[in-house]
């Protein structure tokens, strides 16, 4: 294992930020970390990079126990920060030069790596420009570039695709998959875009209130809620009065109406489509869909749908 | 417009620097010892620089609205743009009026100024305050970020103050220099204050009209909507 967090506890004043938190990342593996705001994702990243000390538990990185800063360990880690942390008043090339030197690269080797990284992030030919002139996607790619110059064995990416165009997002996701596969880099990827995590992760940890509430491969996690069928039926001019009739049907777990769409959850292995259609026959049915659960369904069923950073009256 | 006025006033008062500029700086300025010669005490002219910076800091809201794109949301609403500008300007003038009154009351205690000087110089300060707001709005049009705007403004305002006779008495200026600096509104401000202090009120109307012309000119450009 490249990274092993074992029952980590971290408190800030009275607040438990990490509560018996466990995580493992192997070589060449992409591990997704999902969680609502305030779940402990950034705290766990800070702990791994040595930016804070633990109250209890252990962190092993590259087989060594660490607690707090260690330059040897930092040398082998690349951190892609959530915010774009580059210097916008100097050129992209100068940014790469600076961050490369921070990690001990020098001379010809540094120049070579800058050229390689520029190709990897799709910015070759644009390095002389100031990042001020870049689009959001380009800035994000440069942000990543500054973190991989030194060929880290562990790459931590904290929401690297926030606020960028679909092309740049796709480019970054392809880049992450390629990097893990070709260079055996262990990658920790956090994001609020569940679809991204689903697309690239070998394993996923779902965290909430400082501890992991589920972990496994994407299919393993989906299997946890695979017991339910999600059926969507779109009709014209629906009426709420029919909801009660639908709820009374056997094997129906949940029914809701969202504009023109009846959303029905039934138990697995049950086929009551004919009964549902019969109940809805007074309406003109436009579309019927039997949805397989997604990672988003897993996430929402485990963490709930209520807002975490405010309430709506 | 009242909606904008009260919002602008609230936002301005919430900034701690507003209180410092309105209440503290006039006190510091009034304590500056007067020149030993019989010319207008330094406090009166340097207060003009305080007005300029106070106006600049107050108008930051307008630049922020543009930088943060709030102006787009406002523009999409039924609010007329001139009501938006008018509301802000009225709010800032209300605050500057408080500052002027406070400063003049301090001046009465410190320098025992005559009632005529009190009235005339208050009027000069009020017109200059309006001109400063107009100039600040005009200035902000050329910048996207407040940090850059104030950095360059600090230079320009200091040059205008120095060359216009706010930080160095006009009496010390050679005639050839005075011929050049008449293009600056700060010169006319210092000139009118000087004349008022010396009891020469005949030209005050003329100088106030020049300041008003500067104000109108800066407003004409500065009040334009810009995204």
């Amino acid at each position, binding site marked *: 294992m490249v990274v092993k967090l074992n029952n980590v506890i971290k408190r800030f004043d009275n607040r438990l930020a990490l509560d018996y938190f466990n995580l493992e990342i192997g070589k060449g593996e992409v591990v997704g970390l999902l969680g609502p705001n305030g779940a402990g994702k950034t705290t766990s990243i800070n702990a791994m990079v040595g930016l804070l000390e633990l109250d209890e538990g252990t962190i092993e990185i590259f087989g060594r126990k660490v607690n707090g800063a260690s*330059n*040897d360990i930092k040398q082998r880690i690349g951190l892609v920060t959530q915010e774009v942390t580059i210097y916008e008043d100097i050129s992209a090339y*100068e940014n790469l030069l*600076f961050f490369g030197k*921070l990690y001990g690269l020098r001379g010809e080797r540094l120049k070579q790596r800058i050229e390689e990284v520029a190709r990897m992030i799709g910015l070759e030919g644009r390095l002389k420009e100031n990042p001020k002139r870049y689009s959001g996607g380009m800035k994000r790619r440069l942000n990543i570039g500054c973190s991989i110059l030194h060929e880290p064995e562990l790459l931590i990416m904290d929401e690297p695709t926030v606020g960028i165009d679909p092309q740049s997002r796709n480019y970054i996701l392809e880049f992450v998959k390629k990097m893990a596969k070709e260079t055996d880099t262990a990658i920790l990827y956090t994001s609020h875009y569940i679809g991204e995590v689903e697309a690239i992760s070998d394993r996923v940890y779902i965290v909430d209130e400082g501890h992991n509430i589920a972990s496994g491969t994407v299919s393993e996690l989906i299997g946890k809620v695979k017991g339910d069928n999600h059926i969507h039926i779109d009709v014209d001019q629906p009426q709420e009065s029919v909801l009660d009739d639908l709820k009374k049907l056997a094997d129906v777990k949940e029914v809701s109406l969202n504009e023109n769409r009846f959303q029905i959850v039934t138990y697995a292995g049950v086929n009551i489509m004919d009964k549902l259609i019969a109940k809805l026959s007074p309406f003109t049915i436009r579309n019927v869909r039997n949805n397989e659960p997604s990672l988003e369904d897993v996430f929402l069923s485990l963490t709930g749908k209520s807002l975490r950073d405010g309430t709506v009256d | 417009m009242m909606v904008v006025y009260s919002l602008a006033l609230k936002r301005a008062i919430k900034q701690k620097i507003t209180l410092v500029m309105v209440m503290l700086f006039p006190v510091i300025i009034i304590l*500056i010892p007067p020149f030993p010669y019989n010319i207008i005490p330094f406090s009166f002219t340097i207060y003009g620089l305080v007005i300029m910076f106070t106006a600049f800091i107050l108008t930051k809201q307008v630049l922020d609205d543009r930088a943060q794109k709030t102006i787009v949301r406002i523009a999409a609403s039924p609010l007329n743009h001139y009501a938006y500008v008018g509301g802000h300007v009225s709010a800032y003038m209300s605050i500057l009026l408080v500052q002027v009154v406070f400063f003049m009351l301090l001046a009465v205690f410190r320098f025992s100024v005559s009632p005529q000087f009190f009235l005339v110089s208050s009027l000069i300060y009020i017109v200059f305050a309006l001109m400063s707001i107009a100039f600040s709005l005009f200035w902000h049009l050329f910048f996207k970020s407040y940090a850059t705007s104030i950095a360059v403004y600090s*230079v320009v305002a200091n040059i205008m103050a*120095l060359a216009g006779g706010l930080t160095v008495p006009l009496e010390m200026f050679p005639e050839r220099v005075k011929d050049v600096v008449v293009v600056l509104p700060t010169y006319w401000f210092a000139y009118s204050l000087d004349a008022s202090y010396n009891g020469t009120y005949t030209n005050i109307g003329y100088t106030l009209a020049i300041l008003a012309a500067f104000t109108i000119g800066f407003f004409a450009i500065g009040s334009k909507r810009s995204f």
Partner: protein
Amino acid sequence: MLRFYGLRVLKDYLGHVILIGLPIFMITFMSYINTPEGESVAAVAGTITIAFLLMFHIFGAAYTHEGIEKDFFTPMRMRLKAAPVNPVRFIVAMIVYSVLISFAQTLVILAYSMVVLGAAFQNLPLVLLLFIINIVFSQLMAAVVILKLKKAAKAQAVMMAYAIGGPVLAGFMFPLPENTFTRFLERYSTPVAHIRTAITGVLNSDTTDIVLGAALALAFIAIITVVLVRLSESVKT
């Protein structure tokens, strides 16, 4: 790596315009204002240049202030602290290059004053040394203020208060009332007053003033360095 900090400071073109252009304008203007018609400005240009340079050294401390603010009080902090480098090195690099650039700006302004205005400076090497002391103190003070207050707006307010208050108390802006207290303030109130005392000593060939002024300023530098070393520990965590 240090070179990078020099590049950051060097590329602040607006800063150069403000910190070279504005003093040159003010020195020129004040020299002409204070010279009767028909006479050469050279007689007063030297003294006026020294006064403005001492003031603008304090404004030049903005390089250190803004550099540390960007590196340690924005999300950039995480990236830098995740690097295998002692974070204190960044602070040292910022201060070193800010001092160098501020001194270079001083040389440009001095050159203008000597070549264009005809100012003459007695014992120029000693005056330059005293300028360096003033620059070093200003940059160190900016570092201490931002690290202590942690908020850019508050730190800027403190530096602005020193930038205005220091020269006022030293008697640069306008003559203070004549009494023992104000004479004490003009000579000993702040490091900028100390350097002014020392430079006045150079101009008047008064060794006591030179030694006293320089020693006091260096003592302040020693104190503020100790404070800075302690505060620098906070950036490691």
